[in-house]
Structure formats: C-alpha cells, structure tokens
C-alpha cells in the first residue's frame, strides 16, 4: 500500500519500520535461537529503529540545520554502537537505547515546533497522516524512555515483567500508524473539490 509513490516523504520508511518491528517481535516470540540471543536482537533492533526513525525525520523536517544535526548525531551513534559492540550479546544496551530515544523525542518536538511556526496557510490539521505518525512516535518514546534508561538495573525477571510496557506501546504505535495509512489512503482517494471548480475570481483570470 505504502510502497507506491506517496506525497508524504518518509511514509515508506515508517512502513519498513513497522515491518521490521513485526519481524523482530515475531522472531523473538517464536524462535528458540532468538530467545537465546534476545539481547543481541534487541540491540540490533535498536540500531535499525534509530536508523529508520532518524531517516524519517530527515525526510520530513525541512530545516537544513536539523538535517545536518541528524547526520552528525547518527554518525556519533553508529561510532558508539561499534565501540560498544563487545557487550551486544550479553546485555541490553541501555545507554544506546536511551540515546536513540532522546534523539527521536527531540526530533518529534522539533517537528511540532517547526509545524507551529509555519505560516498560517501551510498549517496542517491533526488528522494529517504525517502528524499522526509523529504523535505515535512521541507516545512510543514517552512510554519506553524510562524503561530503557533503567533496563540495565533490572533483573531478568523484572525485565520480562516490565517489557510488557514496550509491547503495549508497540500496539498503540501500530494502531496510530495504521490510522495514518488509512487516512492517507482515504484522503488521496477523494477527488478534491478544487479539481472540479474554476476560480473565476482569481487574479490570473483578469
């Protein structure tokens, strides 16, 4: 549905993110190998998640300085990830997750601020698919931020108990993503009234 060319930049990135999230969760739940190597999979997913979401914001936010900041922070993130790869199999990397969550949170806020600062004629409704996607990401980050911060201090049992927060926030995020996709689809199906009318009062007609 979303692989076709869309008007909203980065829509397909969110689509791939949803697929990646689904595959990761499915694999962890159903595979014995995945259960044994869950820390490795979680860390890899954190990297994939950060890459896709930061790329989504790179495509969505038009401010050049923010785009540059995304590139610089991503480079730092990848360097950190490579330098911390020794512990990738043994434990969930709380620091990298926290880092990525804070960056995504900041990008969500920047997106909202840039939207609010836009001229009146360019303002978008809250039922705009892009807007809903950012709300979904913000809610996801808000739900999981503290869990990721203290993940390293939790026992395996506590981790398993509290991981349910991530599952619920994933469900909420996916519901909002689906809403955004459906809204996008329905908004693009409807012919706009402008396409059927001629503005006789336009100054070009003078």
């Amino acid at each position, binding site marked *: 549905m979303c692989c076709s060319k869309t008007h909203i930049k980065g829509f397909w990135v969110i689509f791939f993110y949803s697929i990646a999230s689904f595959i990761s969760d499915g694999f962890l739940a159903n595979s014995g190998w995945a259960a044994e190597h869950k820390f490795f999979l979680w860390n890899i997913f954190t990297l994939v998640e950060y890459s896709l979401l930061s790329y989504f914001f790179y495509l969505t936010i038009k401010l050049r300085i923010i785009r540059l900041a995304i590139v610089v922070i991503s480079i730092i993130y990848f360097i950190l990830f490579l330098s911390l790869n020794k512990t990738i199999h043994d434990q969930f990397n709380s620091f990298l997750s926290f880092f990525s969550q804070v960056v995504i949170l900041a990008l969500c806020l920047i997106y909202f601020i840039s939207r609010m600062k836009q001229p*009146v004629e360019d303002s978008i409704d809250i039922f705009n698919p892009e807007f809903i996607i950012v709300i979904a990401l913000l809610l996801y980050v808000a739900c999981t931020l503290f869990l990721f911060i203290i993940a390293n201090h939790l026992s395996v049992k506590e981790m398993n108990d509290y991981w349910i927060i991530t599952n619920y926030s994933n469900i909420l995020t996916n519901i909002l993503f689906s809403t955004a996709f459906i809204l996008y689809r329905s908004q693009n199906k409807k012919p706009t009234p402008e396409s059927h009318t001629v503005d006789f009062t336009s100054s070009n007609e003078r």
Partner: protein
Amino acid sequence: MVLLQALSPDNNISMVLFFGTIGMLALTIGLIVFISFHQRKVIRYQQQLQRMEQDQQKTLLNASIRLQEEERQRIAADLHDDAGPLLATARLYLNENFVNLDKQTQLQSIYNAKQIIDDTIQLIRNISHSLMPPTLKNFGLESAVNDLFQKISGSGSMNASSRFHDYRERLKAENELIIFRIIQELINNILKHSNASFIHLTQNTSGQRFFIRLHHDGRGLTQTDFEKLGKSNVGLGLKNIQSRLKVLQGKIFFEKDMSQTYYKVTIEMNREDELKPANGTN
C-alpha cells in the same frame, strides 16, 4: 501485577520506572492536546480569513458589475434623451425641404438642421470624452488632472490646484486611466459630500513608490469609515476605488488631522516595469 510490583515501597527502580513513564505519558498527552488545540485554532483563523477574502472579492465584483451597468445606462440615457431628439429635429427640418419649395425657407431649415447636427456632434464628443478623456490619452495624467482641476476652479465654487513633482516619464496608459478614474471618484466625493472650499493634489515618487495626495478642508472620511463603507452595501464609488487599486496593487489611506481633513492616496508599483518613454500614442 506490574502496577503492584512497581508501587511496592522496597522497589525504588520500579517506582522510578512507574512514575517516570506516567509522567512522560502525561507530558506527552498534554503536549499533543495543546498542539491539537493550537492547530485547530490556526486552521479556524485561516478559514475565517479565506471567507473574509471571498466576501470582499464578491463585494468588489458586484460593485464593478453594478458600476459598469450604471455607466451603460448613463450612456444609453445620454444617447436616447439628448442625441435622439436632436437628430429627430434635424430630420424634421430636412423633411421640410421636400414640402416647402420656397428657396429662402429651405436655406433656413438646412441651416437649422446643420446647427442641430453640430450640437449632436458636440454632444457625442462629450459622451466620448467622458469615457476616455482625450487630454489623458494624448498628453498624460498630469495634463488630464490639471485640466480637470482648471474646470473645477473655473466653476468658481471651489479653489482647486494640482502639482506634479516627479512625473517626467509617463506610466502605462491603462494605469494612468485607472489613477485618473480614482482621482475623479475622490474629487466627485469631495464635491458631493465634503462642502470643501479648496482641493489640492500633489504627486511624488519615493524610490519605487508612486504617491498621489489629495488635501481638502471639508468633511472627509477616516480609514475606518472607508473600510466600513467598503464592506457595506452602500459606497459603490469607494468599492470601485478599491477594485481599481487592486488592479494596480495599490493602497489607499484616508487620514484626518486637527486642522484639516486630507486624503492620502498611496499607489505602489514597480516603476522599472511600469515606466515607458513618454509619447502620445497608446
């Protein structure tokens, strides 16, 4: 179960997790609600602006159509009431030649018919000049305005003067006509409503901006009055000024000071595109 475990007093980390997550969620929901209300407000404001603009466009369009109809009716009335009877009378005089064979009477009736046809020609010239003043066409805005002001002064009821400070190169003919019509409309309003004893017009330029200022000592309008009348159903002439200024992308300001009332008409245009060598041909 997760909630109970988190709230147990011996589990500090769980408490941090619980309250941290709840706090973050509350903040996020608050932010989303705030942004939603803000966006809604902005969109409502935008829709209101669009509606107002559409209403304004509609009013101006109606005014311009009404004005055009009034102009047509005036020309039709002039032709029907003045030129029609004159030509009919001339025809009667000429017809008399077929009936009356007396040479002297024939000459007299031909002479009368000629007089009437001359009057008709003059009348049609006047109608034509009211549509497009020949002075404006041939000699430009400055001459046309001076001519108009001389005629007003000549009537003896009002002292009218004009001065063009920087009009070495003429504007485009269509823009000169629009400015002239605006001046005519303003003068007409002053004559009809202000009870003024003098009118003074000055022209200036400042960079790319072209200014026309009209001063008079009668009762005038303020900018608020002008805007109010522009939106109401009355004030056809003012709406006409607005629609003409829209074509020029100009602005008009009505101001009033303690000692006198004066109009200040500001017309902005790109003079680099606008200016063309002065000549009579258009």
